[in-house]
């Protein structure tokens, strides 16, 4: 639908006075002056929220991600619904990462019902997830994040000068969309996923066309890594506590233990013993903390740092060629890591397609009964945790869902606090531009918790 709005979007191409790289910007030494910076809208994030940063005498006294969208109550909606409904209900939480919600939901239900899904059905799930990673990562790289580095207001403005790159991004994203459509029945909110497997599985012959397109996509993804690794990156690193799934043999997506850079290594079922959620006054999305440590970081950078040795040979080589090294603590370089993970997803997809044999049945049978099930999968933005308690009739008695953006909120706020303190010499426009960019480093899906983001920096 096309609907009128009273929002006013600045028109034109490049944002003024904020071309990268940072050292070229006009510098005003104002660390101790009273300053007030306000940006009404932070574009190129998924969802809506607000952000305020207050600076007093050169010290950041507040950096708050204000999420004011009313709670969406999905966990409450799930109570009283049958276990079979969870994948389709939770998919509606997000239009960008519905597969992630479906995969965490079905695996948690299968854990509750003591059912195991492996072999070609598990491969198909990973293949579907590869499609979502491709479309989500490519969208963020080309249309949401690259404009920050090249100095454009939007991907559309950037396209006028970088048509070849944007066309490559659109074609690459379409391969991801088409893979999701092929396996999921449609590109947004797929309808072919069920607890136990799928409603229908493809024949080998149905996968031939997408295989050829994925071969092209692999080259395009490698070209993407080369493209983004040539950008200029702010010099910014912090000692993050990265958290991701780790699998004995795979670059973990569907399953694994939860590990951290401080040595945590726990089964997914123990998640709530180590990670807590709390309500803070300025946000309608719960803030997650790692017990004893506070803020932690989930998503591509965490996966890369904790699972470099699980990347495919090609993805590893491409990462090393890009200059990333085996670890990366600069969140601005997450755009390179997303590109490397796109290579990984396509490589994985081609490997699965090469050996795929249709399973005898599209889903495994299961016995309905009471139980508690936990699952975590790696959504494009990081760990997505689901826990369900079922009654003996298979009806959901209780549900808990922790999306990645909730888990990253504290890390985002900490990044802003440190980034602003380290760059108070920048003028207001440049500082605001890079604060927005710092938020976009996380590709926050605020819609999973809220919508709309405004940035306000007040200096006194």
């Amino acid at each position, binding site marked *: *639908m*096309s*609907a*009128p*709005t009273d*929002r*006013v*979007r600045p028109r034109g191409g490049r944002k003024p006075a904020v071309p990268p790289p940072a050292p070229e910007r006009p510098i005003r030494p104002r660390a101790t002056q009273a300053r007030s910076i306000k940006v009404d*809208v*932070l*574009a*190129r*994030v*998924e*969802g*809506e929220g607000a952000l305020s940063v207050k600076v007093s005498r050169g010290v950041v006294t507040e950096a708050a991600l204000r999420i004011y969208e009313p709670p969406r109550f999905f966990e409450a909606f799930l109570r009283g619904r049958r276990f079979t409904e969870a994948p389709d209900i939770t998919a509606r939480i997000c*239009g*960008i990462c519905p597969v992630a919600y479906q995969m965490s939901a079905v695996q948690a239900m299968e854990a509750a019902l003591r059912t195991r899904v492996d072999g070609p059905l598990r491969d198909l799930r990973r293949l579907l997830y590869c499609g979502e990673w491709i479309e989500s990562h490519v*969208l963020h790289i080309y*249309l*949401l994040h690259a404009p920050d580095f090249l100095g454009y207001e939007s*991907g*559309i*403005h950037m*396209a*006028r000068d970088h*048509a070849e790159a*944007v*066309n490559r991004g*659109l074609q690459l*994203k*379409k391969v991801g*969309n088409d893979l999701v459509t092929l396996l999921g029945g449609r*590109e*947004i909110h797929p309808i072919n996923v069920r607890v136990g497997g799928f409603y229908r599985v493809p024949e080998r012959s149905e996968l031939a066309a997408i295989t050829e397109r994925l071969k092209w996509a692999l080259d395009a993804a490698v070209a993407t890594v080369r493209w983004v690794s040539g950008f200029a990156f702010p010099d910014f690193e912090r000692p993050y506590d990265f958290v991701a799934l780790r699998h004995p043999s795979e670059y973990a997506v569907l399953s694994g233990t939860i590990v951290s850079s401080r040595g945590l290594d726990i089964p997914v079922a123990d998640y709530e013993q180590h990670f807590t959620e709390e309500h803070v006054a300025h946000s309608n999305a719960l803030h997650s903390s790692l017990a004893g440590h506070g803020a932690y970081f989930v998503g591509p950078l965490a996966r890369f740092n904790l699972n470099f040795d699980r990347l495919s040979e090609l993805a590893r080589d491409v990462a090393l060629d890009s200059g990333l090294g085996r670890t990366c603590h600069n969140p601005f370089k997450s755009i390179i890591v997303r590109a490397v993970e796109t290579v990984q997803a396509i490589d994985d997809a081609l490997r699965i397609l090469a050996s795929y044999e249709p399973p005898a049945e599209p889903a495994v049978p299961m016995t309905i009964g009471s139980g508690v099930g936990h699952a975590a999968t790696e959504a494009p933005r990081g760990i997505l945790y689901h826990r369900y308690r079922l009654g003996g009739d298979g009806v959901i008695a209780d549900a808990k869902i922790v999306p990645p953006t909730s888990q990253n909120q504290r890390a985002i706020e900490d990044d802003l606090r440190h980034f602003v303190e380290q760059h108070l010499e920048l003028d207001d426009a440049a500082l605001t531009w890079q604060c927005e960019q710092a938020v976009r480093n996380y590709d926050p899906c605020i*819609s999973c918790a809220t*919508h*709309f*983001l405004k940035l306000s920096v007040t200096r006194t």
Partner: protein
Amino acid sequence: MTDCTRVIGVGNVNRGDDAAGLLVARALAGRVPPSVEIRECSGDMSSLLEAWRGASVAVVVDAMASGLPAGTVHVLAPDAEVLHAAGAHWSNHGFGLAEAIELGRALHVLPRRLVVLGIEGEDFETGAPVSTTVVHAVERAADLILDTL
């Protein structure tokens, strides 16, 4: 680019009058010359770009909420102000028709002629039926397209 003409119905059948564009596409099925293709589209930016890729003429039909009486059929050029005010989305969850037109123009993949047919709706609630006034407007829009082709 071929000489193909494409009619692209945009919308969501689960959101009341937002189904209008899709209903027009379905109303035209089997009634257009062989050179005219009918497509349906969710309205996502990249899907729209793909839907009109390669066509020389495209008619995009979508529901609107501009404040005019329900059932009004708008015929709009791609640079019509109302489209771009409507498209001022900040979230990529909201990239839609206006962004697709802008990006298509930047990438030089807009059809030689692009016309947007907007059908004013009044009820976009989840699960709502299509309102009677919009059902009649769908018929008028389909007839208008048939007369123009």
